[in-house]
């Protein structure tokens, strides 16, 4: 799956200002829009069967195999205190955790890729409860919708 908008390919060379923009991948969890830096996502996979791990931490939904490699899949919904996912349908974002382990993030739906400049991102100090506060890097507006930028290190820690 090619995540990058093909029409945006030429922009990078044209405008040096554009280089300060970062690409974000947006996704939906419990009907809310979230985003993480695209560069931190390795791959998006779907239709994987999860194997639960008894006694595992509650926010690990299970393990799955992606081309012969095993990885743990985290329940993003639970991390965000938005309830618990039922691992029946959903997509898995593959990302690297801070310790270099490849992890899956279970999300409801993947929306697309957006470019944001630092100026478009507002800080979230005091906006959220402390738990989500540590997970968010800021908030941005995409058209009429608000998107919460998540801090991957916090999410996968």
């Amino acid at each position, binding site marked *: 799956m090619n995540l990058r908008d093909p029409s945006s390919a030429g922009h990078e060379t044209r405008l040096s200002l554009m280089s300060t923009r970062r690409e974000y991948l947006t996704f939906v969890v419990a009907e809310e829009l979230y985003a993480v830096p695209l560069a931190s996502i390795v791959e998006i996979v779907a239709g*994987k*069967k999860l*194997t*639960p*791990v*008894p*006694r*595992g*931490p509650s926010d*690990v939904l299970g*393990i*799955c*195999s992606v*081309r*012969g*490699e*095993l*990885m*743990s899949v*985290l329940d993003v919904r639970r991390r965000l205190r938005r309830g618990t996912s039922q691992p029946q349908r959903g997509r898995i974002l593959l990302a690297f*955790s801070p*310790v270099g*382990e*490849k*992890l899956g993030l279970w999300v409801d739906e993947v929306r697309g890729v957006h470019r944001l400049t630092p100026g478009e991102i507002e800080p979230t100090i005091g906006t959220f409860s402390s738990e989500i506060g540590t997970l968010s890097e800021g908030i941005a507006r995409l058209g009429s919708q608000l998107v919460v930028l998540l801090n991957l290190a916090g999410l*996968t820690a």
Partner: protein
Amino acid sequence: MTDGKDKSQAEFVSEAQELIEALSRNLTALERALPTGTEEPEQLNEAFRNVHTLKGLSGLFNQRPMGELSHSLEDLLDKLRLGRLQLSVEVLDQLFAAVDAFWHLLSQGGNGTSVSLAALLARLDALTPAPPEAPTNDLEGYALDPELLSVLTEYEEHRLQLSIKQGLALVLVRVRFELATLDTQLSAVKSDTKPFGEVLTYLPAGDNADPACLDLDLLIATGQVEEVKQVLGSAASQLRVIGRTESAARPELQPAGATEGRQLSHAATQDAALARSPSPSQPIAHPSAAPGALVRSISQTVRVDIRKLDELMNVLAKLSVLRGALGELSETARAEGDRQMVGRLHHLSHQFSRNLRELQGGLLDVRMVPLTQVFERLTRVVRQTGRELDKDVHLVVTGADTEIDKLIVEELSDPLMHIVRNAVDHGIEDRQSRDRRGKPRGGTIALNAFQKGNHVVIEAEDDGCGVDTESLVRNARSLGLISVIEASEMSRDEALNLIFHPGLSTRATATAVSGRGVGMDVVRTNIAKLGGSVELDSERQIGTKITLTLPLTRAIVTALVVLVGDSTFAVPLNSIAEVARLDPARIRRVDNAELLSRRDSTLELRRLRELFNLGSARNGDRDYVVEVKAGPRRLGLVVDALQGQQDIIIRPLGASLDGVRGFSGASELGDERIALVLDPGALIDEAGAEASATARNSAAPRSLSLP
């Protein structure tokens, strides 16, 4: 990307590691020989060369702390090999300290700095050299070619002087070598002559017509000329004993005024005329072996990062899944009745399986390394601990060449270190006590390794005082781990097993070395993680023997696949004692535990369904009990169904599942199905811990055995 840098760094580390290991080996050999004064000068020289190469390597890779240390060490070793400094226990201590510092630096990528390094460097420099000996003129009395003397290195001259002082005879031998294999042949000659003499130096003899061969004149110092002659046999085309000029022993070889020297090459030519015909054992010149061939590496080995092998194992895992799919396809075709297709598919699938097995075997084979490295480090641990505690301890190692998976070797170092430290500290008594008990003053620790089927067994045995079970039981009771009645009813084996209990120690106070109560339980846990088991046997005043049984490899294990509800688990076959249908009539409940009574014993049961919270029990079909073992301990795991054996490749559960007890990893079985691999050792430990917790809460006597 920093890939190139990482690669060169990895190269540095692995090369440095080899050199440090070689250095350590040479030092250990020297240490062993020191009390009897039989140190091999060659080992000192080897150690010097190891450090010299390491210094060069450090410079090449810009590893400054490593370079500095090598430099100081090189100086010291140079003084030692030139006899300017006498080798002693104190000097060896500093040399071993330097080896440890090398390891430390290397573990930090070679560039780490350590506070103690400066202190060590100062200590190395402080080992002041003995005043230089008055130069002896012993050489003058010998008919040695001044040309030869002029090319001797300082070390060679030192050895020559020393040999003459010791009254050894000097022999000059001409040997023809094939250029392509010069190195190996030369070292063969050196080691052949070693029992009788020392090859002091060698020089090319020059006048040889064959470009593929090289004649060398070897100068050998020996007390047994005849033996040297015999060893070299027909390989030597000329052999000449160089006598003293004053002596009339061999006047024919010593013209007057020999102090001026005789042209060696001239003499050689003369002698050569007498024995010109090539000896039959001379190597046949190889047509392609031009002089340039020497540059080519003689070694046939490659160094490979273990992670690369792991990647290959990953590919192997994928191929195994494909093999499964191929097999299924073959079955489907059979059901559909396409005869020709079935035949071809079957054939293909069969061939695929066979090749896969070969690939698997080959891959496992290259992962195997000897235990030598680990054992060598243990030698140093014993030495160091012995000195710290002022005890004489002697380590005897057998079976160091036993091979085991590289990944297991890595994990063995800590547990074994713990065991030998314990043996020195708790096992071996101090000299006075040993004297009183009529034991030899020096204690002995024997480390034996051997392969037994699919396992590697490592035994660590000491001749010390044995485990004080009374004090173990007393401590266990005061900590409330066992009840008073249990304590009184405990068999010696049960009491011995208390040593594996977390937090228990026989010592009232901790020493710097061991005895803080974190010990054998950690050893057992770590060994269980590797799929192995630990057993302890001890006899008061006679000694203690700890036996580690380890699988040959963790990369691929044969496992029994079992089902519980929707979940699939794999149980490594090497930890299964027995599998049977569970007869409900034979189950008895004691407290909250289920016990299966059998002909001659009872087996404690654990239902995986309850253990892992896998939903309510089904009714109808009978369950199975899989009896797992860890050393002498047993536990019955109750499962719904069995699904046969399979070779599985165990992958670790990631960091986010690190704390989960009871599993050693997971494995893909095909069609995306993943089986969690059970860790029987951990499950048994768990059952044991529960049992003793219950014992603490109820004072009632129980027949259950402790962990």
